[in-house]
């Protein structure tokens, strides 16, 4: 629903016609917070998509890359008594070849790094598959040249009998282009619906991957807050509630995922 109220546009428009607003970079003397450990952990039902990343936070205006933490012990357990040790494949990145999560199971994450212990749990929901992806091409109303804007409609059918939470990620040529869009079925429970992504930067021959993850309520709440943080209009931004226990920030989620790929065709073939 937030998408329907382009609040920022409205205010800027008012200032626009008065043609006097301006933006500028300023220096802020903001206190340095202590470093904290960050956990970015996803278990998936798709093979080789379960990845746990361990890093440290950086000072706000730093230009250094993030420090990833090696030599941690990362373990995943499920409620059938199975336990998996995830080895480090890249600095700070822990994955297990061929690991596949199973719908309906409860998973627990245990991390030990230096003297810090972190654990969390998440139950993997049932999968909801993407029905189809529709690419919508419309002439751009914002530029003078003959440019087109690409929009995506991700069609799926929501199950009626439960409350579902979704997270959408769009990858362009294997890197994350648009992530952290979350939705719940309050307005479309039981219906076939679509999620609309307007004005995505794409070019012919780009490989686009759309991933639909079914997530739990804690993850929905986490990413809902993350998605709002860049708006200057929140009354008082705050940090999302983490489902981790221990001296760390971040999240752990067991997601049931489905993906669809396509390659952006030549414009002439669509029009």
């Amino acid at each position: 629903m937030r998408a329907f109220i382009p609040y920022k546009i409205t205010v800027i428009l008012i200032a626009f016609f008065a043609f006097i607003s301006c933006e500028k970079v300023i220096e802020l003397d903001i206190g340095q917070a202590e470093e904290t450990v960050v956990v970015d952990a996803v278990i998936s039902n798709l093979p080789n998509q379960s990845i746990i990343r361990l890093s440290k936070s950086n000072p706000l205006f730093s230009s250094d890359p993030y420090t990833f933490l090696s030599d941690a012990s990362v373990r995943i357990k499920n409620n059938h008594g199975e336990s998996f040790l995830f080895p480090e494949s890249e600095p700070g990145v822990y994955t297990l070849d061929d690991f596949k999560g199973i719908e309906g199971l409860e998973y627990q994450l245990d991390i030990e790094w230096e003297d810090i212990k972190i654990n969390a749990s998440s139950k993997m929901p049932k999968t909801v598959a993407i029905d189809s992806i529709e690419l919508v091409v419309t002439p751009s109303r914002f530029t003078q040249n003959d440019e087109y804007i690409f929009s995506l409609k991700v069609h799926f059918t929501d199950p009626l009998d439960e409350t579902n939470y979704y997270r959408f990620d769009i990858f362009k040529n294997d890197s994350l282009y648009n992530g952290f869009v979350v939705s719940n079925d309050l307005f479309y429970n039981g219906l076939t619906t679509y999620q609309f992504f307007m004005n995505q930067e794409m070019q012919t021959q780009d490989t686009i991957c759309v991933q639909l993850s079914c997530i739990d309520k804690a993850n929905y709440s986490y990413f809902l807050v993350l998605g709002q943080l860049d708006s200057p209009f929140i009354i008082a931004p705050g940090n999302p509630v983490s489902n981790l226990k221990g001296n760390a920030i971040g999240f752990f989620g067991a997601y049931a995922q489905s993906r669809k790929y396509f390659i952006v065709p030549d414009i002439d073939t669509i029009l």
Partner: protein
Amino acid sequence: MKVSFLFLMCFLSMQMLFAQQKDYSVSGTIRDWETGEDLPGATLSLKNKGGVGASSNAYGYFSLALQEGNYDLMFTYIGYETQYANINLIANQVINIELKPLTAELSEIEIIGEREDRNIRANEMTVANVSIKEIESIPVLFGERDVFKTLQLMPGVKPASEGSSGFYVRGGSSDQNLILLDEAPVYNASHMMGFFSIFNSDALRDIKLYKGGMGAEYGGRLSSVLDIKMKEGNAKQFTANGGLGLISSRLTIQSPIVKNKGSFIVSARRTYADLFTVFSKNEAIKDAQLYFYDLNAKGNIRIGENDRVFISGYFGRDKFGFDERFGFNWGNSTATIRWNHIFNPKLFSNTSFIYSKYSYQILAGPSDRRIEIGSHIIDYNFKHDYQFYQNDHSSWKFGLNIIHHTMNPGDLNSDENQIFNSLEVEKRYALETAVYLSNERKISSSLSLNYGVRFSDFIQLGPGNIYTFNSFGDVIKTDVYKKWEKVVNYNGLEPRINGTWIINAVSSFRAFYTYSKQYMHLLSNSSSDSPTDIWLPSSNNIKPSSSSQAGIGYYRNFKQNMYEFSIEAYYKSMQDIIDYKIDAQVTLNPLVEGDLVFGKGRAYGAELFIKKRKGKLTGWIAYTLSRTERLFEEINSNNWYPAKQDRTHDIALVAMFQMSKRIQLSASWVYYTGNAVTYPESKYTINGQDILLYSDRNSYRMPDYHRLDLALSLKNKEFKTVVDRETGKLVQQKKRFQSSWNFSIYNAYNRENAYSISFEQSESNPDVLQAIQLSLFKIIPSITYNFNF
């Protein structure tokens, strides 16, 4: 408990009616000689006997009980010539007075006995009085004179954000202000996201803001009462006035219905901000619609000696449309029917029926997939108030107020191309009732007291599904209620007391204590007043909020009332106030009550005010030093944190210089230390994206804000030279058509004040974040042409 209270009130009323001495009343109405408008707060005093007097009520009615005898009466009102009358009081007598406004020459001369020391004598605590004349002189944004913007120049009143007409009074939030337009409550008093207020100052007669110490006749909001009365309309002759400006134009027409007995006024205003978008080269912005309009209409008629009937209405709407695919409109409508009745010279009553509606509508999507989201709140209000002028040292106010609220927090209508279900968040209903009794009593010649109590009662009513939540926000119980079935009942006593001790002819001291309850709450999720904020009633999940405020003040006039000085200090504590959980879903959420947290607040401060009233140069300085904090278990680890509107220092300087008869210069300068704000302190990475890690709530401050506005008003020639028919000489005659030009500059030294600060990737180096400050307004000149005839 309630029954015995009612008996107590009846008993007291009986007492009042029978405890009279052998005296007679002199009563009547005090009006403006030129227009016939009522003059509220005008004073009647006795020439020979100090310390005895009365003042007129909101309808210009006064009543003074005196013993048989001969008296020299004196009628005074600021800005008007004093009038004298001699009466021989041997029976009740009615005198209707018309006071003449002071002309420019006369206002420079001191007039002896004029009650300019009203600020010393009157037993009104912490009232900010702004005259319509001052509103018209002060330079404002886009040249639009505005009631709220002028009020924000008073101590203790802080604007919500740049250009916004929302306001905070003494640390309270913006839903804690009771805004009354001719007794009708107004839920959203701003246009265009808060850049303008809905009040067209051409139609207004009287504006009073109570910051604390409000009488028992007011209730329902914790922090302030903004009581706005519209003009009645010129009862003597037809007049029209208006203005043409860069952003908006307005026209007001007034006329008698029956000369001196009845009149009406119609006042309209429309902006045309969207005229400028036509110049844009951008297609989407070119088609944008952006305008608002206000229409105020009022009529009144006197029936016989003792009755007067009024009908008034207000209609206003903002419309914003962008592309055919998005539209947004919102507005208020109010209607009031009122009947004044004078039972006898000592008993005045007012009965009103009021309707008030605030609604908004969002339209989104192309026409084949249109979605409509709407929300509204409707009040039906019955008020019955009495004023009993017992004798020369005691008068009483008592009455009853019943409001029925209907709230529709949101409904979504989606057409047949169903990608969303149509959804209606259930309507909520409530009945808010209050009875009050207060007495204003002169205990001695220097001590007077205004004390009273209000008993308020709130019932949430069915029909509807009523949810009970656990602490995680999940529904644990749903109960179904039928129409008019009581869901929950809250009530309480709200005692009020304030006292004035007149130290001498030029100084006084005041103290007050006010306890208030608030049953209707505004849920707001953005930093400026959004038209989509929702009003919710107290319920099984939401307790009523309450506040206790106490304060003292010292008032002194200097140089024969040329300078007015006051210093006030207050302490306010608030209980059961509301905030959102960090992951709350506000829009269209039937379970939003599960996303709320409850806590308390406190505010304290001191306000200094110095005003120069007379002379070519007039104006004032207002300084407020204050603090306002909140405490919620779930926020900030249960520690007190500053509220967003906590601005330590707040200064306003206003000057008006009458350079000549036709030229007036004015300037206003404001300075305040920045809002409390939450900044990120470090960043981290999730899935390759930078995420900001925030500090404790509101632990930083925005940069200081200051701004200078200038205005020049040039009156065109008032008089024309004509040949007098009788004498054949040339004489000066006042022109029927008067006009003036107003030039103003907003933000004259072009300071880039911070509206918001956000953190974004640097364009040159995407790995680095930068703090970006958005300023809304740089220097803005504007011109308005005003006329009247």
